[in-house]
């Protein structure tokens, strides 16, 4: 457990530093935030003709209200936590790679739901937007990370679980 925690913290710290550094920002954060904005827009647009998107902003054309996807809202930190947790846990590499692929997809999928829900919440119920944005969704995204990681652990191949044939 201690070894897992130390490796987890080391990987988490390394990835977090890379994310904050200029190469991480230009290679990962900015392109991904832009892609997330476009993806959210593409999912909303068929049902809502008033929506427009530019840069990292999704807006309602008629009243100008909208959201800007900032650091902490693009689920990159949540993905980093999941990557660190999967890489730090002793498991076969094939299982790790499968966990990373499906896990990141699950976290980002939930985050698209967060972005879309917050876009409408700021227009319909601005009074509870702060609670949903800063606290509820932040906790839900991390709960998603935890559940994905636990599902991955539960699906661990038997040989890794019982290394001595017990």
């Amino acid at each position: 457990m201690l070894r897992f925690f130390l490796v987890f913290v080391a990987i988490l710290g390394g990835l977090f530093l890379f994310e904050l550094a200029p190469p991480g920002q230009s290679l990962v954060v900015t392109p991904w935030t832009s892609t997330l904005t476009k993806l959210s827009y593409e999912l909303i647009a068929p049902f809502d003709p008033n929506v427009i998107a530019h840069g990292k902003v999704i807006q309602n054309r008629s009243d100008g209200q909208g959201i800007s996807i900032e650091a902490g809202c693009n689920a990159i930190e949540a993905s980093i936590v999941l990557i660190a947790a999967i890489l730090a846990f002793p498991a076969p590499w094939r299982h790790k790679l499968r966990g990373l692929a499906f896990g990141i997809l699950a976290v980002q999928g939930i985050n698209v739901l967060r972005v879309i829900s917050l876009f409408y919440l700021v227009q319909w119920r601005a009074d509870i937007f702060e609670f949903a944005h800063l606290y509820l969704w932040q906790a839900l995204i991390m709960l998603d990370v935890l559940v994905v990681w636990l599902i991955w652990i539960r699906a661990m191949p038997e040989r890794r679980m019982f290394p001595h044939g017990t």
Partner: protein
Amino acid sequence: MGRNPLYIFLAKAAFWLPLCLGLWYWKAEWFNSPAALVSSWIMQGFFDGWVESVEWSRRTLSVLTTLELPNIPVPAERSGQVGLLVVQTNPLFYGYGLPLFAALLLSSGEARRWRKLLFGALALIPLQSWGVCFDILRQVAIEAGPAVRAQAGFSRWQIEVIGLGYQFGYLILPTVAPISLWLALNRQFIPMLMLEGGLQRSEYPGKSV
């Protein structure tokens, strides 16, 4: 689906998380007071050169400083007086780990959960204070401008550390700390989950569980 302990845990967490978060948000001034108090001690203890006093009310921690703000227009009747920097922060931004931790603990049906809850709540206070203090320092060292920064006496590398500490306290600590704490206090959960998953697969080989 009903047999899977993970689904049961998830269903319980979906129930407890909004409940714990709602209670924590409703009584925010009460739940966040310990971290506000610790933060004010830290700021007054380590930065007594420019921290005049710290006030905590209505979910806002206000730090009154002796740092002078340049280029503040002063009315004629107050000529000779200067504007002083007041920094404000919301400790709730860094404190939602407590309801998340409580929800996880209540969802996993552990023994001695109230004792663990109390221990966890105490352990999370310094981590929340980390976020609060680095937010105050960030505002002084980075946002308030070069004149204020020079008065506070922050060097280049200290500013980098403050920026990094703030990002870590805002983006990582509030969510990773409660989950790590919950796992540390509930060590049998992971082996139990692996064992249960393995048994389930051996019982129904070839079937996805």
